[in-house]
């Protein structure tokens, strides 16, 4: 698949179809693959593809040095392609300025691959090129939102509160979760505002709860479950469990799943008189 990716990239650059390719390069031995942005066809040999290509490259699309190149190619997994669809729905990227190179993905390796256990987009949709074929690995067999459903069904509210108090106590407010999230593109994040201060910047239980719950709510119906927030958290907080809970709620109550249909209005961006309100008590 790597050769195919490199050849396609060379062709796209040489023909002037794109003016840059945002992809993955080898990281340190055994470590995650890293982001690379190449603008010269002779650099395509640096592009790679393996089971350590964790990052969601859509998070780099707002960078000035990338935007100013005009039309670019971007290497995406299924989860990344869904993130791009959300960005397109929210008018953050122009689809016409992107050439999506979809990589068939059987999952990225443990121990960070909880997100892959219930993935159903092994072959990215709505892309311009697809490289490789998914093998339909056993990882696809788990039910989506299984972990969230057991957490909500099997634990009482008091137990869940105790769980989150212990998890979130370790947060140091590094905001790595925000930095890697393609959906966190606000030029001025609410936590950086201080006239007035809405969310304490302190890494107290109050400040940490306020930050993570606010971010989870801001991701309602937008989080595609790419798993990056949980992977990068230096404190190992199970952020996927928190951020995907509202994704589960959006599907359950509004039959809406982020990033699957660029024509659909985002669930928190529209209102119908027939929307159920029985959960407001």
């Amino acid at each position: 698949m790597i050769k195919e990716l490199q050849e396609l990239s060379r062709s796209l650059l040489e023909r002037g179809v794109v003016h840059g390719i945002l992809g993955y390069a080898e990281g340190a031995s055994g470590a995650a693959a890293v982001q690379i942005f190449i603008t010269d066809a002779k650099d395509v040999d640096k592009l790679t593809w393996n089971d350590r290509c964790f990052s969601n490259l859509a998070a780099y699309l707002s960078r000035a040095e990338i935007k100013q190149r005009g039309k670019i190619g971007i290497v995406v997994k299924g989860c990344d392609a869904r993130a791009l669809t959300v960005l397109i729905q929210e008018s953050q990227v122009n689809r016409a300025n992107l050439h999506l190179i979809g990589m068939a993905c059987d999952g990225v390796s443990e121990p960070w691959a909880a997100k892959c256990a219930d993935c159903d987009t092994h072959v990215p949709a709505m892309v311009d090129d697809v490289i490789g074929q998914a093998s339909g690995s056993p990882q696809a067999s788990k039910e989506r939102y299984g972990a969230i459903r057991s957490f909500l069904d099997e634990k009482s509210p008091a137990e869940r509160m105790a769980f989150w108090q212990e998890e979130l106590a370790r947060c140091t407010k590094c905001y790595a979760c925000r930095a890697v999230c393609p959906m966190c593109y606000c030029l001025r994040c609410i936590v950086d505002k201080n006239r007035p201060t809405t969310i304490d910047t302190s890494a107290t239980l109050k400040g940490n709860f306020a930050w993570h719950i606010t971010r989870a709510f801001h991701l309602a119906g937008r989080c595609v479950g790419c798993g990056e927030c949980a992977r990068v958290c230096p404190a190992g907080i199970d952020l996927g469990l928190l951020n995907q809970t509202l994704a589960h709620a959006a599907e359950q109550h509004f039959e809406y799943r982020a990033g699957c249909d660029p024509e659909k209005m985002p669930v928190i961006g529209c209102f119908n008189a027939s929307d159920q309100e029985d959960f407001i008590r």
Partner: protein
Amino acid sequence: MSDAISHEALMALMDSWISQGRAVAGPVALKSGLCLYLPIVQSKRLRLDTSARPRNSIKEFLFPKHETLCTFAFDGKDVEVADAPLPETETILCGVRPCDAASLPIMDRVFQWDDTDPSYAKRRELTTVVTLACTRYDVYCTCTTFGYSPSAHEGSDVLLVPYGDGHYEVFCLTEKGENLFNGAVQPLDESAPVPTGPDKRFDTEPIQAFLRDQFDAPVWSEIGARCMSCGACAHVCPTCHCFDIVDEGNATTGRRVRNWDSCQFAMFTMHASGHNPRSDQAQRQRQRIQHKFRMYPERFGSILCTGCGNCTRNCPAGLGVLHALATIDETIAISQDKANS
């Protein structure tokens, strides 16, 4: 003749410290693949093999991620300010990696510079550091490049070196250390094997010269392009110590607090005027490396890095000090090749 302690005796000793009302902390295997320095209430929670390096550092026990400096209350036009009480609990950090302990003498220099930080000084006084020599290292471990080793003494009160059979050789390096292990050690004939660390990764002198003489080198743009501007590197680093001071409260009472900051945040150097002297990530990345390897050494005589590798290990984009220095090293090599050809 060596002093030694068995693993069981060490655990019992630790439990006795806990029952005496001292705070004990050390490496805890929290979940699969995650080891962190955390406070413990039972010795068996501690993980004393060095197969996994904690993802955090021990600095939070001396320089907490959040700390109240003072409290205030308004009464009409008057305000009453009260200093926050200083900590009183004795703390023992056990199973600390030598690269983490080595950060303490380095940070002492800035926290006890022209003024002594009362909170840091008090915690330093109340804390005893028991280090565990590393018998394993990973691709990120770089202590030897900066003059340290898997059994370095810097910052340690007691060094434990594993024999490999469930015993540790005990080196009490300070009076605090002697007081802690008094009567707890047994004599053994042999010394524990001295663990070897990784080979030196690069020469620091040419890198420091590069930082001094080529401030505007284009290498920083490449590094900045990948950096996502979070604070992970600064927060997991044993020697990073930048902080933000904010007031929290309401119209009548509040607290002035100190929180960990990071020079990689976009807002780090934002002025009230709206001007930001380090407005792009290349400048911010350059600043971190310059501070650690040129500015701090020029002022305080030591590199602001112990080679623990935590920054690169935790970086979402695989950057950190190791990547930056390796890139500079490569840049120097390329320009030397050009000069020689």
